[in-house]
């Protein structure tokens, strides 16, 4: 971490020979952050997708506005027997045979309706809030747990390390999705009791908890590895030589050096968490109806793929767009800051 990793990232780089010579006399070099930012800014695609992600988040946050002022409905309001004027013709929102209308591209039912006659656009935005919320909070949970565990294991070594590492190794042995599913099934009924806090089985906190947990090994292991490397750095020895205690060393010497890794992981974790949420929901072990999320919407839609393909395609595209924007942006951030961070995914 100490020397700037000159990476392969598109564009500028010196060959190995040059780096070797340059390595030792790096006068007035750029700081890792500045360098990262500069690289990132050059990566227009990544920036573009980053902006797209922000737009997606903003539009999901604006869901109530759309619902109230454009669609004139709520995410839960049924329009089973309603009709709507389309090109002057009166059309059932839901046909007698249960087939809902497709996209109208007008204010109401912009992206069509679901079998309950609910406005897909409205549900899409509200569902996005849930999906994104789960993604962000779960990623946050993973990050915090991983950093705490990784730092403790990497810094103290010995038995705390052995314990944490074994635990992570064991968790690592489970396929992400199956571990998620197992937890989902275990928690579906009674919910979770964490000390005095009880979380109901259909609470959104359950998928957050599950997703936040299953990715811990994927982040904690690299963090631990990095802490192990950092702890051998002379500046950590220097701090110890000056009498700094373990806590101070961890927080003021080690953790700041993890910042770029954390940032990279966080972005990519959100993407994976959103994706895992959809998979768990699809399997019935994630978000429980009636809470909408993109995963549950796809799950509901797949059954009507022949008569109402928009039910599957629309939330799926939204999901892909969101995850893709995070992945591209995250990839850009990684290339700019920490080219070696890797996240494994579910199947």
């Amino acid at each position, binding site marked *: 971490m100490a020397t700037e990793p000159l*990476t*392969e*990232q*598109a*564009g500028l780089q010196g*060959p*190995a*020979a040059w*780096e070797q010579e340059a390595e030792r006399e790096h006068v007035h070099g750029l700081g890792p952050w500045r360098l990262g930012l500069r690289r990132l800014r050059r990566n227009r*695609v990544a920036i573009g997708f980053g902006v797209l992600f922000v737009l997606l988040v903003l539009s999901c946050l604006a869901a109530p506005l759309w619902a109230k002022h454009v669609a004139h409905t709520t995410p839960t309001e049924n329009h089973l027997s309603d009709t709507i004027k389309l090109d002057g013709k009166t059309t059932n929102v839901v046909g007698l045979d249960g087939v809902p209308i497709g996209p109208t591209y007008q204010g109401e039912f912009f992206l069509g309706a679901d079998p309950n006659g609910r406005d897909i656009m409205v549900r899409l935005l509200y569902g996005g809030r849930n999906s994104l919320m789960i993604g962000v909070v779960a990623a946050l949970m993973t990050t915090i747990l991983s950093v705490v565990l990784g730092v403790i294991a990497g810094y103290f070594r010995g038995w705390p390390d052995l314990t944490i590492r*074994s635990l992570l*190794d*064991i*968790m*690592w*042995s*489970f*396929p992400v*999705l*199956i*571990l998620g*599913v*197992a*937890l*989902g*099934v*275990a*928690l579906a*009924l*009674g*919910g*979770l009791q964490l000390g005095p806090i*009880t979380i109901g089985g259909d609470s959104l906190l359950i998928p957050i908890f599950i997703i936040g947990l299953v990715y811990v090994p994927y982040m904690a292991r690299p963090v631990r590895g990095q802490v192990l490397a950092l702890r051998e750095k002379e500046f950590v020895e220097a701090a110890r030589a000056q009498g700094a205690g373990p806590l101070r060393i961890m927080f003021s010497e080690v953790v700041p050096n993890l910042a770029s890794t954390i940032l990279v992981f966080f972005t990519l974790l959100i*993407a994976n968490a959103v*994706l895992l949420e*959809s*998979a768990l929901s*699809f*399997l*019935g*072990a994630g978000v429980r109806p009636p809470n909408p999320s993109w995963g549950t919407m*796809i799950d509901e839609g*797949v059954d009507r*793929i*022949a008569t109402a393909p928009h039910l*599957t395609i629309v939330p*799926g595209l939204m*999901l*892909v767009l969101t*995850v*893709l924007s995070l*992945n*591209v942006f995250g*990839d850009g951030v990684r290339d700019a800051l920490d*080219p*070696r961070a*890797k996240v*494994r*995914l579910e*199947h």
Partner: protein
Amino acid sequence: MGRFIVRRVIQMVLVMFAVSVLTFLIFNVIPNSDPAVRMSGRQASESTIEAIREEWGFNDSLPQQYITTMEKVITGDLKSQFTQLSVGKEIVKGLPRTFSLAIGAALLWMFVAICFGLYSAVKAGKFADRFLTIIALIGISMPVFWIGALANYYLGFKLGWFPNGGYVEFTEDPIDWFYHLILPWTVLAILFIGFYSRVLRSNVLDTINEDYVRTARAKGLGERQIMIRHVLRNSMIPIVTLWGLDFGAVLGGGAILTETVFDLQGVGQYTAEAIGQLDVPPVLAVTMFSAFFIVLLNAVVDILYAYLDPRIRLQ
């Protein structure tokens, strides 16, 4: 090498033990509800719940409960609460299908990912690289069940290019077997291709800058030889570990979504159904089973790895 293998096998057994303990804890300790009630599924009477409690020993101490559970798993006495069918038998029945899916997909994704990753790395920074990068990222951004459902419906049913899901035994008709698996293989591979090609690309770029590659170049070797003998082989080593994990996961029924979408009725789909029914014993068994597969594959890969990379053996 012999010692290494023995050590690795002992380690594998220990990890499997730990995995079984963790699985047991997930199902019997974490939940906030009576495990007997959960286990008994739908329309259980008090007496059924009581019988299950008795059968699984939920009143006993935890270690005793663990032993009871493991006895059931190992002796194949584990039965679905829902169908009363032996979970072990059902898993065995699903294995050929799961293996067919896993092996084909794993070969496909490895092959394509190597091509993509290598090409991308060689063309780093150029248009081809950026294009492949975006393709790869799209690949890892698509939910398998979504793309699978769309492919199945549009390519399988609407256009009729492929069978509409389902599975044909290899022994019955190898060509039809292959034909039925093309879509599932492709869909499952898409995600891995995306991921592996990215990892390989970055590994290759790391390796290209290694001193020994410079040495190889200074030796006057051709670019192709350098890439294959020196760069690719060394870049592949970390990927083999990853591959072991993922291949193990898919072998062990990890491809729940793909199997379900294409109605392959392998171990994964069996799990998916059990989830839908909250049928605990199959989920417990598959969870343990798939982790065992990963642990096993991991050990195999490590041994392979020690063969590939002689440095490992000494550690």
